[in-house]
């Protein structure tokens, strides 16, 4: 999907330059990974993380972070 039609020429040029730099720096891939991602965690370890999120603690902590710093807020 091209977004170029929505960008003014100056922004499009800056974005394209940044894109090329990111690719050259290895920060941005153009192709899928050679092998699928495999989590290093065991089922027990994953369950800890799931319980943490299901407890609402992640959402509460993120709400706190966003409330403390407007630069990291959702709105």
């Amino acid at each position, binding site marked *: 999907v091209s977004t170029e039609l929505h960008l003014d020429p100056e922004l499009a040029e800056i974005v394209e330059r940044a894109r090329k730099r990111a690719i050259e720096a290895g*920060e941005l891939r153009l192709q*899928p990974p050679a092998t699928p991602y495999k989590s290093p965690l065991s089922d027990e370890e994953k369950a*800890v993380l799931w319980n943490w999120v299901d407890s609402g603690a992640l959402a509460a902590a993120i709400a706190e972070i966003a409330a403390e710093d407007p630069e990291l807020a959702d*709105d």
Partner: protein
Amino acid sequence: LPVVVDEYLLFDLLADRASPDLRDELDYGVVLTTGSWYYRLARAAKSHSHGVLSSLLRDLDADTQQRVRNHLDYLPAAIDLVGWRTVVPAMVALRVRRNLNLLAAEALAVALMAGAEIAVRVDTPLIRSGAEDLGIPYRLG
């Protein structure tokens, strides 16, 4: 189409409980996140005021505790992250209707650079509005 994910979807990928579609995007496409979302996730995991993760880890041996914590601290190579040196020039060049904060400007700039859509678990009005202005696909997932 590459996809930029927020910290909740990033968590789902790291904890192996992403939706099949998102999991396919990780395995067969290009998934990115932003430094701001990555930071919010890693910092939330260290939140003392909520201490839930620490209490859940308490009964596990020290090595396991460390492995789980490291998993949230160190982003796997399968998920792309564009550095400040590269993304800041694009962030400051964005022109949209609403004033952007750091979180929103980074997400929008990274999406433009990658030709990606933005996928979030929690609706983020500032990013949604900017994405609309710039023609970036935005989805709740």
